[in-house]
């Protein structure tokens, strides 16, 4: 079999094909470019790791072992203050829920103000949009830190941080959805002589409601993740318990808490996927009817 193949394709044939289809075969130029890219990459990685003092990883082995051992061998489980831990998790969920709820209400109003077809005044619209850009540009954790300074430690700062950063993102999504609505329904409601509030209620809202609900649910999920770490800067919730236990070198408890939070987030993902599916499916059947 192999001898037959080599006979069928002589070296001349291969050279001929190479010349005919230069792009299929690797030529020297692309080989050099690829090689230099790889060398550049390796050089960059080694330089930056050297700058970051990678050798500290080798010195750390003792502490790493202590850490790993404590994470898998749980001691003294009777005195772990479970009530405290689960209260923290409940607080995290509550923060995420309230923050996302407030954010979606405000974002809906801001979305109408930032959409091209509902806000005719360019200057005002641009002002709102830049304001939303700033809300979005600052990370949730930074907002958490700022609000802790402003209103003190505790869940209020966390709710405000989630509220502010989610408002920025949700309002942008809503304003894009409002810009993409079907004009016909809006004009139809307008033609009946309805006021602007009724046009919004019966012309715009039914069209953006499915997106509104599914995006809010998505953001509730992501805020739950966000709320977990907000506590690290003192903004309430389970993060405060995590960092407290971490500082006290109780790594087994930290592992337990993180595991609980992960399970909780997994359950929320599952439930909200169910709700989304239900709402979208219901919406489709009403449309077909």
């Amino acid at each position, binding site marked *: 079999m192999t001898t037959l193949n080599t006979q069928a394709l002589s070296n001349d044939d291969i050279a001929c094909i190479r010349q005919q289809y230069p792009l299929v075969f690797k030529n020297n130029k692309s080989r050099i470019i690829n090689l230099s890219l790889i060398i550049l*990459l390796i050089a*960059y*990685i080694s330089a*930056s*790791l050297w*700058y*970051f*003092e*990678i050798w*500290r*990883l080798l*010195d*750390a082995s003792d*502490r*790493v072992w202590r*850490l790993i051992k404590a994470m898998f061998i749980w001691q003294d489980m009777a005195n772990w203050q479970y009530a405290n831990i689960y*209260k923290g998790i*409940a*607080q995290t*969920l*509550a*923060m995420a*829920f*309230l923050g996302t*709820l407030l954010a979606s209400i405000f974002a809906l109003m801001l979305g109408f103000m930032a959409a091209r077809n509902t806000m005719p005044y360019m200057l005002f619209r641009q002002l709102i949009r830049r304001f939303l*850009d*700033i809300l979005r*540009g*600052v*990370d949730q*954790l*930074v907002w958490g*830190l*700022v*609000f802790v*300074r*402003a*209103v*003190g430690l*505790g*869940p*209020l700062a*966390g*709710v*405000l941080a989630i509220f502010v950063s989610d408002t920025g993102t949700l309002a942008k999504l809503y304003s894009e959805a409002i810009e993409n609505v079907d004009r016909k329904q809006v004009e139809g409601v307008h033609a009946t002589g309805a006021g602007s509030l009724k046009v919004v209620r019966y012309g715009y809202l039914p069209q953006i409601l499915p997106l509104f609900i599914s995006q809010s649910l998505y953001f509730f999920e992501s805020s739950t*993740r966000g709320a*977990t*770490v907000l506590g*690290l*800067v003192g903004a*309430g919730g389970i993060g405060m318990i*995590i*960092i407290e236990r*971490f500082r006290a070198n109780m790594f087994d408890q930290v592992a337990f808490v*993180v595991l609980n939070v*992960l399970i909780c*987030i997994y359950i929320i993902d599952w439930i909200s996927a169910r709700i989304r599916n239900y709402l979208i499916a219901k919406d489709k059947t009403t449309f077909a009817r």
Partner: protein
Amino acid sequence: MAATTQSMPEQNLDIVTLFEKRRLEVIKEKRAMNILFAACFLAALVASIYISNFYPEKLLSGLPRIFEYFGTIMPALEFDKLFLGIQANGKATSGSIAYWYSDFWLYIRLIIETIFMALTATILGALAAFILCFPASRNLAPNSTIYWFSRRFMEICRGVPEILYALIFVFAVGIGPLAGGLAIAIHTAGALGKLFSEVNENTSMRAVEGIRGLGGNWFEEIRYGIVPQVLPNFTSYTLLRFEINIRASSIVGFVGAGGIGQELSRVISLYSDDRVTAVLLLIIIVVTIIDLLSERVRMKFIGKESFQ
């Protein structure tokens, strides 16, 4: 059927009553569902207000303090002194930009460190994800045990927030950008690995079958059958991740893992003056510029690939 013998108006009436009956049923069903949802929603609302102590009077007493705080961190710029440089005695005029950004070069050094941290973490994470994603795709995994383990490993990597990893690494290797870089790299490996394996699962298996027919082993199947198909998508996902990692690396400093976050956290917790807005503004500007640049590059990559 009896309907055929009935006269036209009666038949119509029959259909109308049927319709009305059905309509009432649907409305009833819908109303019951809505009431159930509303009840669940209200219960959740009351419970969360109770648990997080989010009472109106607390919010109202906090609200003025928020505005007060934002007032204090605004820079006191005076228009006529705006562009005055540093004076002969080495001090900047109060009210000028030079006074507002008196630690400018420190911030720039930290921002460069932040960008390096994000870049290194993205490259390391993408390499790890590249290795992990092939055993974690359903169509390419050599056997189900390896598939299951690589999937779970990636889930652990991306399930834990990067700042928690940063906390752990700061304990293990000490304060500095190494901890932050490693933390972000681990999170990136998990997140990108999932996206990469989804790309792999959507590829055409014909090239793989051809190579298998020629007697290629698993590595050759991947190298010549899958990698050429998925490389453009991998590149654009990696660039997208770089944008996310820039944001992440600007905050891992909160727990001491290097970058501008360390300075931001210090400035916010120790002072409440214009230094806070100075650092924040700089971060927003850098993040925006990198977003725009990376978007350009991404468009170029995808455009080039789709035209070939």
